[in-house]
Each structure stands twice: as structure tokens, then as C-alpha cells.
């Protein structure tokens, strides 16, 4: 049970009407083993001013759940959006939550919010019926006012002086789609005014009396060990405190620039371990150290010994000769083998990891930029040897996460330093620290061997993945013979630095390989790539997104390379179907790819906020341009070469194409994920469009100018 149980909450929340939702872990959570407890997961309060507060352990990092969750509550309660206040990511006030990731806030947490609000409405209607002395059936609620057409009373008046607490299961009586007035309507973001005026507070904007700014001594490379340390000059600086505790060496100063100056006065020597591989040799290293491989999914006829193919095929051979192999699927058709590669990716949110910590009366309070306030509370408590009840984590607005702020080591550092110094301390990562301590999205190598039959249908699909994991690795199309082999490294320390989930973890890499290979087969079979896809799937949702995106682009038929520079790719992620169609131009002199247009068609079930959903799709496409065209971490072992945006290049305004987004109506399906799906097919759709424009097949991301030029020369 949480430190914050129901009784405590009701006491803390004060008067009014409070509805709590106790939901059993949903099937998906159980499946994902996220450890979601059988516990309260939504609170909602209506106070005597008719004001509604929704408490959620989720955090707002730009994805707009602040708005979509408020919209869901407003819909079920029958109140205007403006009367809802969100309290998010505060471990003292909000129900426990595993973390904000995986496009789950709306689809997983949404049902709990709607249930709480629907139950609250039921309670209010009952109170209104008693107060107005009219039957409940005659009452309707609009804008927080309950009325039978003659007499009326407000939610605020009904809540006044009450101490009502209700507990509901997730299955409350919800409004049906046809009655929606708030859900499904495009809504402007509720955090807009704060964000355009500079008033929105991020962790770095917290100011505490007497707060000191910390800078920590960092190693030059991951795995480096310190051999000497001289802090004398820093200690001599006016107003500077030097902290030395085991591995923790830090300076504390009244200003961040003062702390930077003090840190520069510390002299330390280090020895770096030898680099096992770098950004160029990573692919070979993965394949060599990838282990025997584990067959995860088999359909049709395959050689039962999985190790055989891994050992006999050269995974980095690139596009294969098409030779038939014994036991490799149906061998009546020529097989096509392609190896795809991608590099490590930085999350690079605009706000670096930041935390402010205050140690007061035996309690540690930390304001942190984190996607996981409750996980951060646990880690702070462990590091300080405190009970979790003695730690409070608050999450102000988070300036971008994309998976990178699931861990929040800066919060632990700030808390340790605040306890040592006895004063509030802020730890704000520099951009260099942000790059160095990122949990990079892993590099990957994917080898696909597939074949097409005389009907121009996919006959076999043999898929081998290193590094990317299995998300979105399924073949998606109707293929009779499928085998997926995932290579798990022999050593858990495969990577020379920390890695972690990067927006739709691994899915973009798997779909880059799959949807490229689909196009390669279509071209080989002499079939238009859209037609080839439609020919190979009966999935109506998939067919619909493909056709919708193609129609909106103005698809002109033609087998690749058609010279048009247009292409299509599709994926399923977080329950959402997404197809992207794109147009590119390739400068044959420089190798530069200019993406001119991207059309996205998405089927995500019920859409809570169409504007928010479209913003997420556009964001996915614009962010996706990065890993497709320019982003790839440069490193030598644990030595991270990229420390700022000068060498690790994010997409800029001039790279962003005209983006059109289409939402497919599917109100039969509950809301699905929207924060990640549209980034997933970006690699494939652009690589396919480059092929369609030039006849050159790019099998490695990012498709830098140099690589495009080299590939054109080689063709």
C-alpha cells in the first residue's frame, strides 16, 4: 500500500466531494509487468467553489496530457474545461504511477479519469435531486449547473460543507461517444498562457531561500577512474563550498556561473578504459557479440535449429546474392537479403535534467524534471537511507522527455548535496552533461531475408534483430512463413554507456527495416509499392491508413524507382495504426535530402483532443527527421564525442516539410496511443522515397549527405 492511502488523502483533501478510483491492473499493464499496484489510481475533488481538481501521478512534458486528461474529466462531469485544475507528478498529493511513457497516459490512465468523473457526476446528480426535490431523471448538468429546466443548483453549492468520499471501480457508467461535447473537440492547450509568457515553471525555475547551485566533477569518459584530485583553488574561491564524499565531488556556489568557475579550478586526472568499439564499428561488434539468438516467433516451415542460420549467414553482408539456402523458408523463390543499420540516438530534450532539493525538518523535497516522480522518490530515499514517506518529489513542467527523463540521477545528486550542505541545492545539467549522461537509444543491426511468390505475395520472412529489441518487429503483412530471431548479448555490458527507451523504443528501427524490405520486394516484383502492400494484407485498419495517406498525397502509380521521389510506409504502435506518405528531392551533387511533404494518416480509436493528437503527429514527423537525416551519436567506447548541438544536429526549421495529418474516425475503439506512432515509419518512408527518386537504396540511418553520395557513386 502507498504511503498515501485513501483515508489520508480524504483528510488531506479537505471538504467537498471526492471520488477515488480503485482499478485492478489492466490486462496490458499486467502483461508489461510494469508493477502497477492494485491501488487507487485517480482522485478527483469538487470543492465548494465548484472547482474540480484532478490528481494524477502522470507528468506533462509537452505531450498535452494536461489538456487531454482535463478534457476527459470535463466531459464526464459536465463542467467547462477551465474549471478543472490538474495536479500532476506530486508524490505527496497524487496517486502512485509507474511513469509517463509508452503513449499510455490517455489510453491507460484515461479510463480511470473518466470513471472518477462519471461517478462524481452521479453523486452530484443525487445531491441535486435531494436539494431541489425533483426526480433525478429530470435533471441535466451543463457547465457545472444542475437543472430541471425550472430550478437549478451549482456543483459548488452542492459540494459546500460536504465530506463525501466515494470509491469506484473502473467500470462506471460513461457517456457514450454520441453525447460527447468536450471529448473529440479540438482544444487549445490549457497550459498555453503560462508557456507563452515565460511564467510556466520548470525545475530550473524553482527558487528557494539560500539555494546554492552545484556543479559536479565528471569523468571524461564512461568507465574512467580518477587517479588524482586537487580542489585547493576551488576551496579558496569566495562563497564556494567544495564537497568530497567518495565518488561525489562537487562545488556549491550562490550562482550557476560561479559554480562553473569553481569547477574549472578543480584539477583531476583520470585513466580511461580502452574502447571496444565506436560509432562505425558498432554494427560488427553487435553481431559478433550478439549471442546465438533466440527464436521468438515462428509461423510456417522453418529449420528448427535457430543457431544455424545465425552462424552460417554473414549478417553484415549487406544486400544478399539471393542464393537459396537449405532450410531457409520456402526455397522455391529467390530470396532477398538486406542488412539495415542504425546508430545510437540522444534524446536531447531542450531542457536538460534539472532538480532542486531542500532538506528540512527531516524531510527531503525535490523538484525534478523527470518522467517518473515515484521512481525518483524511491531512488532518492534509497540514496539517502530514508523512508519513502520522508521524501517528496514534485514535478513542475518538464521541458521534453522522449524517454530520456525516465531516470533522474540529477534528483539524487541534488538531494545528497542538499543533505550534506544543509541548504537547498540545485543541480542543473549543462548541455555537455546532458549528452554525456543520456540513456541513449541503442544502435541496431537488422537482417531480413524474404521472398515473393509468383502471385507477388510475400512467401517468407526471416527476421534477425540486434540491439533494437522486438517492439514493432512483427511482419504486419499476411505472410505464411515467418521467423523472428532476437539476439540477446552475451554480456549485459554490451553498451559502453547507459541506454534506454527513445521515443517508441526500437520500433523506428524495426519498421525502417521492415518497410524498406517491403519496398525492395515490391521493386523486385515490379509492383507499385502501395499496391504491393495492399495485395499483402487483409487487415482493414492497415489498408485504410495506407489508402488514406496515399490518396491525400495524390499517389500516382508506378513501380519503384518511379522517379517521383514519393513513397509510403506504415506501422502499428501503441495500438495505433499509422501510415506516412512522403515526397523528397535529392540533390545529386551534394547528396542532401530535402523532404518536401509528409502526409500522415492515423487510426487511434476515439480521439480525445484532435488538435493535441495532430500536434503529436507533427512532432513525431519533425523529430523523426533527425534520426533519419542527421542524428547519430559519435563516440569511442565510453568517450562521448558529441557534447552539444554543433555536432549532434537536430532538425531545424528549414528541414521540416509541409506536414498534413489525417485522423481516421474509429469511435468503436477506445483511445489508443498518440505520442509515438507517427515517428515509427519515418526512416522507411524517407528511405523509400529516396529510392523512388534516385534508384539508390539506403540501408543505414541516418542518411547523411556523405552516405547518400557514396551510395549513389556505388550504384
Amino acid at each position, binding site marked *: 500500500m502507498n504511503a498515501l492511502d485513501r483515508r489520508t488523502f480524504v483528510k488531506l483533501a479537505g471538504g467537498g466531494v471526492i471520488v477515488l478510483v480503485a482499478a485492478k491492473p489492466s490486462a496490458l499493464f499486467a502483461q508489461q509487468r510494469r508493477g502497477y499496484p492494485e491501488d487507487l489510481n485517480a482522485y478527483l475533488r469538487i470543492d465548494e467553489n465548484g472547482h474540480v481538481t484532478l490528481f494524477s501521478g502522470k507528468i506533462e512534458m509537452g505531450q498535452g496530457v494536461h489538456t487531454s486528461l482535463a478534457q476527459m474529466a470535463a466531459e464526464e462531469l459536465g463542467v467547462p474545461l477551465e474549471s478543472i485544475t490538474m495536479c500532476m507528478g506530486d508524490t505527496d498529493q497524487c496517486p502512485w504511477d509507474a511513469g509517463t511513457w509508452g503513449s499510455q497516459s490517455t489510453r491507460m490512465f484515461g479510463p480511470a479519469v473518466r470513471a472518477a468523473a462519471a461517478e462524481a457526476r452521479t453523486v452530484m446528480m443525487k445531491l441535486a435531486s435531494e436539494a431541489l426535490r425533483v426526480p433525478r431523471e429530470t435533471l441535466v448538468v451543463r457547465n457545472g449547473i444542475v437543472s430541471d429546466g425550472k430550478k437549478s443548483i451549482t456543483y459548488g453549492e452542492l459540494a459546500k460543507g460536504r465530506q463525501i468520499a466515494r470509491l469506484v471501480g473502473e467500470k462506471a457508467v460513461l457517456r457514450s461517444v454520441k453525447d460527447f461535447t468536450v471529448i473529440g473537440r479540438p482544444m487549445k*492547450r490549457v497550459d498555453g498562457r503560462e*508557456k507563452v509568457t*515565460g511564467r510556466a515553471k520548470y525545475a530550473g*525555475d524553482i527558487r528557494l531561500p539560500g539555494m546554492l547551485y552545484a556543479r559536479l566533477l565528471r569523468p571524461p569518459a564512461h568507465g574512467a577512474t580518477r587517479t588524482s584530485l586537487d580542489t585547493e583553488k576551488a576551496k579558496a574561491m569566495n562563497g564556494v563550498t567544495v564537497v568530497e564524499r567518495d565518488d561525489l565531488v562537487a562545488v556549491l556556489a550562490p550562482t550557476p556561473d560561479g559554480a562553473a568557475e569553481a569547477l574549472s579550478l578543480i584539477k583531476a586526472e583520470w585513466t580511461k578504459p580502452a574502447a571496444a568499439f565506436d560509432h562505425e564499428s558498432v554494427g560488427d561488434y553487435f553481431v559478433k557479440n550478439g549471442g546465438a539468438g533466440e527464436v521468438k516467433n515462428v509461423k510456417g516451415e522453418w529449420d528448427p535449429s535457430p543457431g544455424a542460420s545465425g552462424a552460417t549467414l554473414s549478417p553484415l553482408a549487406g544486400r544478399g546474392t539471393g542464393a537459396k539456402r537449405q532450410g531457409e523458408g520456402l526455397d522455391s523463390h529467390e530470396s532477398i537479403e538486406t542488412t539495415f543499420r542504425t546508430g545510437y540516438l540522444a534524446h536531447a530534450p531542450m531542457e536538460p535534467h534539472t532538480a532542486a532539493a531542500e532538506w528540512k525538518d527531516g524531510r527531503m523535497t525535490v523538484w525534478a524534471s523527470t518522467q517518473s516522480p515515484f521512481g525518483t522518490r524511491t531512488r532518492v530515499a534509497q540514496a539517502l537511507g530514508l523512508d519513502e514517506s520522508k521524501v517528496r518529489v514534485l514535478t513542475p513542467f518538464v521541458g521534453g522527455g522522449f524517454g530520456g527523463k525516465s531516470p533522474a540521477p540529477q534528483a539524487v545528486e541534488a538531494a545528497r548535496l542538499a543533505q550534506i550542505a544543509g541548504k537547498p541545492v540545485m543541480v542543473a545539467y549543462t548541455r555537455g552533461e546532458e549528452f554525456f549522461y543520456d540513456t541513449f537509444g541503442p544502435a541496431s543491426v537488422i537482417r531480413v531475408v524474404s521472398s515473393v511468390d509468383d502471385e507477388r505475395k510475400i512467401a517468407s520472412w526471416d527476421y534477425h534483430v540486434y540491439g533494437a529489441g522486438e517492439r514493432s518487429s512483427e511482419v504486419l503483412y499476411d505472410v505464411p512463413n515467418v521467423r523472428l530471431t532476437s539476439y540477446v548479448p552475451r554480456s549485459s555490458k554490451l553498451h559502453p554507456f547507459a541506454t534506454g527507451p527513445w521515443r517508441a523504443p526500437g520500433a523506428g528501427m524495426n519498421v525502417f527495416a521492415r518497410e524498406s524490405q517491403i519496398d525492395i520486394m515490391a521493386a523486385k516484383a515490379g509492383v507499385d509499392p502501395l499496391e504491393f502492400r495492399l495485395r499483402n494484407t487483409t487487415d482493414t485498419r492497415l489498408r485504410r491508413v495506407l489508402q488514406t495517406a496515399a490518396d491525400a498525397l495524390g499517389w500516382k502509380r508506378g513501380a519503384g524507382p518511379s522517379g517521383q521521389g514519393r513513397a509510403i510506409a506504415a506501422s502499428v504502435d501503441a495500438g495505433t495504426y499509422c501510415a506516412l506518405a512522403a515526397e523528397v528531392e535529392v540533390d545529386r551533387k551534394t547528396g542532401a535530402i530535402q523532404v518536401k511533404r509528409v502526409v500522415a494518416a492515423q487510426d487511434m480509436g476515439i480521439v480525445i483532443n484532435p488538435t493535441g493528437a495532430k500536434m503529436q503527429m507533427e512532432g513525431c514527423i519533425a523529430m523523426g527527421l533527425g534520426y533519419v537525416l542527421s542524428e547519430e551519436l559519435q563516440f569511442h567506447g565510453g568517450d562521448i564525442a558529441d557534447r552539444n548541438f554543433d555536432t549532434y544536429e537536430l532538425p531545424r526549421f528549414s528541414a521540416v516539410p509541409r506536414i498534413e495529418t489525417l485522423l481516421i474516425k474509429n469511435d468503436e475503439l477506445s483511445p489508443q496511443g498518440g505520442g509515438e506512432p507517427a515517428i515509427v515509419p519515418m526512416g522507411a518512408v524517407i528511405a523509400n522515397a529516396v529510392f523512388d527518386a534516385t534508384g539508390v537504396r539506403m540501408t543505414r540511418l541516418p542518411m547523411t549527405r556523405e552516405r547518400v553520395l557514396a551510395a549513389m557513386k556505388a550504384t
Partner: protein
Amino acid sequence: MNRKIEFKLNGKPAAVDTDDQRALLWVLRGDLELTGTKYGCGEGICGACTVAVDGVAVRSCQTALANVEGKSVTTIEGLERDGKLHPLQQAFIDHGAFQCGYCTSGMLMNAWAFLQKTPHASRAAIVDEMDANLCRCGAHQRIVSAIAEVAK
């Protein structure tokens, strides 16, 4: 060198007694507690710290305090007048031209300074001007649309 630096800040007189070589960014965020201006990269690459000095957009992380002496500094906190949003701010809300909001202050200040000298900028000119400001959430298209609406 420690000395008193006087300048105009969002239309009002301001004075700071500190090392005049400190970056304007830290003086604004720390000494003056105007936290709307953000740190992004510390090297003038990302534009999150953009403010206007005498109407010209500068990177406050690369601007020494001494350089604004006697000048007029405008930060994001200075755009709103008497509780009324500047048309650019309103356009950013109307177009949904932000997600996490962390780059927004710098985007707005860069656009504001640009429209001071080029009130009727074309969409292409806006893209060109904004190219040095980074947004990681991918709000680019909406940012350009918001600025273009005000530049009409």
C-alpha cells in the same frame, strides 16, 4: 570587474552590482529572478536564451552584462502589456505553436525582434530567420504559421 551596471529592463530601469563579464542569462535568471529566459546549450547554438537588446535578438548566454549597459533589454516577461498578450503570444496559443514550452520564450523573442524590423515577413523569410532556434518537440510548422499570421 565588479561594478554597478544600469540598463532598461522591459521598459523599467534596472541596476545590478556584479561582475560585468557575467553572462546576461545568469543575471536575468538569478539576480533578477526572471526565469522565463531559458538555458539550452550555453554556446549560442539553440536559441532558448534569446532576448532582445535595443530591439535586436541576442543570445543571452553569449552576452556579457557589460554589453547591455545603458541599453534596453526585453525578455519574454516584457511582451505582455497590462495583462494583454502580445499578438505573437496569442498566435502561439491559437496555433498550438509549442509542446513542452521550453524553447518557446526564445522562439517568441527571436520572432518578436524579427518582426520589429520586418513586420510583413514572408513565410520563407520566417523559416530562414527561425532556423537558428531549436525545438525538439517538433512544433516547427505551427511556430511558422503563428508568426506568419502576425506578419500578415
